[in-house]
């Protein structure tokens, strides 16, 4: 009888549902009032970002990362920026500059008269000077780092390239015009100022200096290197602009004034919201959509998030075949753009005396047996049909000069098809009768790397090598340990700069993990870094590439493909091969409703 009861209940509750349907048709629920139903453009664009931004100041060692750049692209502007071709592009809206002398290298910068921080303060000399102070590494803290023994600077800047070679800029507080003089020629002088300025007046206030008189106090402090005054400034500069981990909230937005088309508004649970910067003076780079939201979504989940409309655009790093197909399968609601990045995969070889690859012939043999073309077929072209074998170290196919440089370096020319016989021959010449044992390190967490090693093993074992994969969780820590590996496959992020690669190739260079030494290469580099004439660069680089190829510095594989999937309602999206990332022109995006 209990059961009959449950039955009646079942009937009852269903009855309730039926009636309630009419009930709500009777209209206790109001009709959907979707805002912006009037105009056809959406007010918000959601951008997926693989990791929550960690700081507003992307210039420090700790915060110099892609996910911060993603945001900075919109909240800062500068004289130059990288464009879709991966070249520097002047941004007249912010200001102008011209080289006034070659010896000593002198550049004259002008800041747009209307350029102001979003809190109204003018963007002027104090900001520039702070920038120099922070990046020049001229304020040794006295503390030395136990490992390297190098003395740390008060300002924990991500790098001192450029500013390091720069004299202290001359200028008055409030000046919109100033000149910088380089103590020694610097090849990438143009790009130096691409790093975003930080609001000096905030730094000053936070460090207990007055921001009055266009930050006169700060300017003074820097000019006469007043450590007592600078230390708090540096401390604020280092960490003051940091967010809490995973971005639960923003610090007081008053200390986060923007010099770009957008300004930071709020954050919650790793979701960062930008709104139009009403103080922004320009037209061309002025924001088109009211709100831009960065949502933290790990790459693996990004596709589903896009498909479900949680985000409007994703740019998963190291995309696979599946990433692309998955995106395409979603259908016409999503557009897929593919291209190449400046990031490229390569195999470094331990060629220190006594190491496996000490002998050039062995290196060449290894280079021959690596099925680069095959890899491209498997990992690149499925994503980016344009993808191809990479022959150069300093240039990627995405860059205009790639071809020209390649012509200048015939030795580097290669179709990347594995040549087992050739490899065998070379090994024979090298007098290797036994299989050459190679322990090949790769990141244990990356399936892609594991697959690459598998491919190499498959091919090179035929040629007389005996490869043992060496997956390491802490592979990058092991990189700099001689003897920890024989060969290693990993990626470099090309900067599009001329001089930044130096430490990879010169003898004893910090990132020259294979212990490669070649006077010729060292000489060429010394020229490159000090050369300030853009015309000469291509020639020098061709020379370099030629030499690197002859001496088989390492084996470059291919430039990683780049992919972006975004809602078809989104307009103005354009891939950018550099580390600037997809948002480089997000200010110009619009989204249909």
């Amino acid at each position: 009888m209990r059961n009959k009861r449950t039955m009646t209940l079942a009937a009852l509750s269903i009855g309730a549902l039926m009636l309630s349907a009419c009930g709500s048709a009777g209209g206790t629920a109001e009709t959907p009032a979707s805002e912006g139903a009037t105009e056809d453009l959406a007010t918000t664009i959601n951008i997926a970002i693989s990791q929550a931004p960690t700081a507003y100041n992307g210039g420090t060692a700790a915060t110099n990362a892609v996910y911060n750049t993603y945001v900075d692209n919109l909240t800062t502007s500068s004289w130059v920026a990288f464009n879709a071709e991966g070249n520097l592009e002047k941004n007249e809206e912010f200001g102008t500059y011209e080289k006034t002398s070659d010896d000593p290298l002198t550049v004259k910068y002008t800041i747009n008269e209307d350029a102001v921080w979003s809190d109204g303060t003018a963007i002027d000399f104090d900001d520039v000077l702070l920038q120099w102070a922070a990046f020049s590494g001229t304020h040794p803290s006295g503390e030395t780092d136990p490992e390297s023994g190098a003395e740390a600077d008060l300002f924990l800047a991500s790098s001192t390239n450029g500013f390091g070679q720069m004299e202290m800029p001359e200028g008055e507080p409030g000046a919109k015009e100033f000149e910088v003089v380089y103590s020694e020629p610097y090849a990438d002088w143009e790009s130096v100022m691409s790093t975003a300025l930080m609001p000096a007046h905030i730094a000053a206030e936070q460090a207990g200096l007055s921001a009055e008189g266009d930050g006169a106090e700060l300017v003074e402090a820097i000019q006469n290197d007043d450590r007592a005054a600078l230390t708090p400034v540096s401390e604020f500069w280092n960490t003051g602009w940091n967010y809490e981990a995973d971005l639960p909230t923003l610090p007081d937005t008053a200390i986060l004034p923007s010099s770009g088309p957008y300004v930071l508004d709020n954050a919650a649970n790793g979701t960062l919201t930008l709104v139009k910067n009403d103080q922004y003076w320009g037209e061309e780079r002025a924001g088109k959509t009211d709100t831009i939201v960065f949502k933290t979504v790990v790459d693996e989940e990004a596709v589903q998030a896009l498909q479900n409309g949680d985000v409007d655009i994703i740019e998963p790093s190291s995309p696979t075949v599946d990433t692309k197909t998955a995106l395409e399968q979603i259908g016409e609601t999503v557009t897929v753009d593919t291209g190449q990045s400046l990031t490229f995969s390569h195999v470094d070889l331990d060629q220190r005396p006594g190491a496996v690859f000490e002998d050039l012939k062995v290196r060449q043999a290894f280079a021959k047996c690596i099925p680069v073309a095959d890899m491209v077929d498997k990992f690149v072209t499925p994503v980016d049909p344009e993808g191809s074998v990479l022959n150069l170290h300093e240039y990627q196919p995405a860059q205009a000069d790639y071809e020209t440089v390649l012509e200048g370096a015939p030795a580097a020319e290669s179709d990347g098809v594995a040549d087992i016989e050739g490899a065998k021959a070379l090994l024979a010449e090298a007098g290797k009768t036994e299989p050459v044992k190679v322990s090949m390190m790769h990141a244990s967490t990356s399936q892609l790397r594991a697959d690459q090693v598998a491919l190499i093993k498959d091919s090179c074992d035929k040629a007389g090598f005996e490869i043992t994969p060496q997956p390491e969780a802490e592979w990058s820590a092991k990189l700099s340990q001689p003897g920890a590996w024989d060969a290693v496959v990993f990626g470099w992020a090309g900067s599009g700069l001329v001089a930044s690669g130096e430490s990879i190739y010169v003898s004893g260079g910090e990132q020259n993990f294979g212990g490669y030494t070649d006077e010729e290469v060292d000489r060429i580099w010394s020229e490159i870094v000090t050369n300030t004439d853009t015309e000469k660069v291509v020639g020098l680089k061709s020379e370099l590439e030629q030499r690197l190829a002859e001496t088989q510095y390492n084996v470059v594989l291919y430039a990683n493909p780049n992919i972006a999937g975004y809602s078809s309602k989104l307009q103005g999206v354009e891939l950018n091969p550099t580390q600037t990332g997809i948002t480089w022109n997000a200010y110009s995006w619009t989204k249909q409703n």
Partner: protein
Amino acid sequence: MSNHQNPRDDSRPSVELSEMTLQSQDTDIATAAPTRAQTDRIRTTEAKSQGRLIRERFFRHKGALAGIALLALIFLLAFSSIGFAGIPGWWNKDYDVLAARFNEGRPTLTLWPFSLGEHPFGQDVLGRDYFALTMRGTQTSLIIAFIVGLVAMVIGTTVGALAGYFRGWTEAFLMRITDVVITIPTVVIAAAVAGIVAKAGIIPFAVFLGIVTWTGLARLVRGEFLSLREKEFVESAKSVGASSFRIIFRHILPNTVGVIIVSTTLAISGAILLETALSYLGLGVVSPDTSLGKAINDNRSALTVRPWLFLWPGAFIIGIALAVNFIGDGLRDAFDPKQTRVKQ
């Protein structure tokens, strides 16, 4: 169920009476002239060793039987197909041999008419045979799971036994340790440990996982000991001067075997899932080794594109875990003393 005479339930076998009749034979078999019912009962009870009773109850558990069959099948498939420890198997492809991809690596398995084809489960990006890969993964996962089970069993039993039997400080000490470890969720502690040992290879990895997953078992075994040590047959053993060692291992332990086996099976199924979870956190087995967990994790993005890469290993994980769970359930029913309690 409200109606006790409802014949619907009669179909289900019960062991209650066979036990009840045991007591009903309190006249010496020598003298008793058995009636029909009596002979029935004698037949139902005679010469049924403990083991056989358990076996019978176990085999009455359909789910458990299915589980056994499934697990055996998976074992057989995994180890016979691609062979193990150098012994070649019947499957002609190896999990780490690259080959040309055939029809975009789609699976060639067809059920009707049944045929395996070239690559039953398809191929991965490098054209490796995914069937062989899955089999390899299954092997690894099984090995891990069973080692974990074994280690957990040994540690858990020892700790539980010592704590339960000796009481006093030994117990206090051991159980506090257990409490400490139990405070940390398995995934958490395992994640912390895995970071250290994953690269050391499968066996040490498994052993460490075992070392962090014994606590539940320890508690159960201790409980059993606490109740058993008060039993008269233990006292009787003491009274004839049996040593603690003998009492623990000869008298009490054999009586806790049920609990131990049951929770070990559960530990095993738990281990399979734990391994998967760790792989997901990037803390599990590292390539070139592979495991089912790693396989699905590596192919997460393939779900909509090449589902087979994601679903096949998943299916095997579920298969194993499901089988083990059912076996565990069967064993629980089989060993459970409640099953033999007389209800009149």
